[in-house]
């Protein structure tokens, strides 16, 4: 118990004195996960729109499949992306492995199902009459999609935020693709894993507290976005 308390106090100290290492790792974490959330959002929100606005055979199955992938194990994505971007893999020539770019790519893939699936759900919740109204007022198909996404923007925003939260808190892709390189690909989660295994519990706790705080902020944002 004393260990936990001592660690806690030391962790607080590391945070409020803006320990350089803590700040650096936190910044990188945010930066990488925000990038992956953005990358995924730019692709997945329109993709969700395409799925929602078109009826085709197997649509239900596709949506079910996407929803199943919400809980895609991060290490599985890590492994698949590793095999893809390793020098011996099909995308090897890009040299993405062990780089922040690779992590962004991997995390974007990881959060894609959540973003696509929740976007579909969000758009499906918009009254079909919005589509009819927009069409009857002369909107093109693309303008109709934009209109519906705009109507559902809070729910779509929530989908993006959830994706960001998952990217930020996952460790599988970050570890396997980033390689936990100090000062380059080391992020909050991989640091916690490493520092814990090295017995640096105070630093681990400080980083863990930051991670929880960020999750809390994301959640507050989510509530705000959804509650309005």
């Amino acid at each position: 118990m004393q260990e936990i308390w001592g660690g806690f106090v030391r962790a607080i100290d590391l945070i409020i004195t803006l320990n350089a290492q803590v700040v650096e790792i936190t910044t990188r974490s945010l930066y990488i996960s925000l990038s992956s959330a953005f990358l995924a959002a730019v692709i997945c929100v329109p993709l969700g729109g395409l799925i929602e606005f078109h009826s085709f055979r197997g649509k239900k199955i596709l949506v079910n499949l996407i929803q199943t992938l919400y809980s895609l194990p991060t290490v599985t994505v890590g492994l698949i992306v590793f095999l893809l971007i390793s020098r011996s893999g099909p995308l090897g020539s890009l040299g993405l492995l062990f780089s922040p770019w690779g992590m962004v790519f991997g995390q974007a893939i990881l959060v894609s199902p959540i973003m696509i699936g929740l976007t579909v759900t969000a758009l499906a919740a918009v009254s079909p009459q919005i589509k009819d109204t927009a069409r009857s007022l002369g909107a093109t198909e693309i303008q109709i999609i934009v209109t519906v996404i705009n109507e559902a923007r809070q729910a779509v925003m929530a989908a993006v935020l959830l994706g960001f939260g998952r990217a930020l808190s996952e460790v599988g892709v970050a570890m396997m693709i980033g390689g936990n390189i100090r000062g380059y690909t080391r992020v909050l989660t991989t640091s916690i894993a490493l520092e814990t295994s090295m017995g640096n519990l105070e630093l681990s706790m400080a980083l863990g507290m930051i991670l929880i705080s960020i999750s809390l902020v994301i959640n507050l944002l989510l509530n705000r976005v959804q509650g309005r």
Partner: protein
Amino acid sequence: MRMAFLEITDLRKTARQGQSLVDILKGINLTVQRGEVLALIGPTGSGKTTLLRQIGLLDGPTGGRIIFDGVSMAGAGERALLQARRRMAMVFQKPVMFRGSVQGNVSFGLKVRGRNDGERVRSALHAVGLSGYEERDAATLSGGEMQRIALARALVLQPELLLLDEPTANLDPKSAKSIDGIIQSLASENITVIMATHNMQQCRKLADRVAVLLGGRLVKLGRPDEVFGDREVCDQMLCSSDGI
């Protein structure tokens, strides 16, 4: 004889309702001239709204065709449909508002056409008696106000063909009267109006012709006095309940 503005031939629509397929329109033939005000009457479920949606090119027909100003819409491409749709506007029975201000709602059709004209928005709002409503949040409007904003949203586009689904059903008598006045003035501007209604008085006052729908068929078409003089139609159409 000049070419009809709207020519509907043997229009059929089958739709899925739950497990079964239902014939909603069973071969409608109808011709509408430019500048005419046509009222569609008939009991609930007779196909009025479905017919309006067909004319508004929101749904494709199961059979038959619509010729709009000389161009057949049967098998027309997305571009042609869009072009035709941009010459008309429709107001739904229970209109929905887009998220945002009244200004945003009324200017929607202008914006999707790449135009935004504050003056036209103002005059459209004035026409429906809601001047100064520009900055209001559309979500806070009352049902009657929404109905009128929806009309303004359509009027601002200066459509050649205006489709109205029960335009005064949710309105208080005073607002209803002002809407009627607007419809009347449209006729003088050579704008074609097709409106579905339950209100027989509105029919008599506004319509050049009345089309009676019953079970997906057009059972009677003619001037209001002709139609309402027909005892058989009147029996089927619950004339009495509307005080005719």
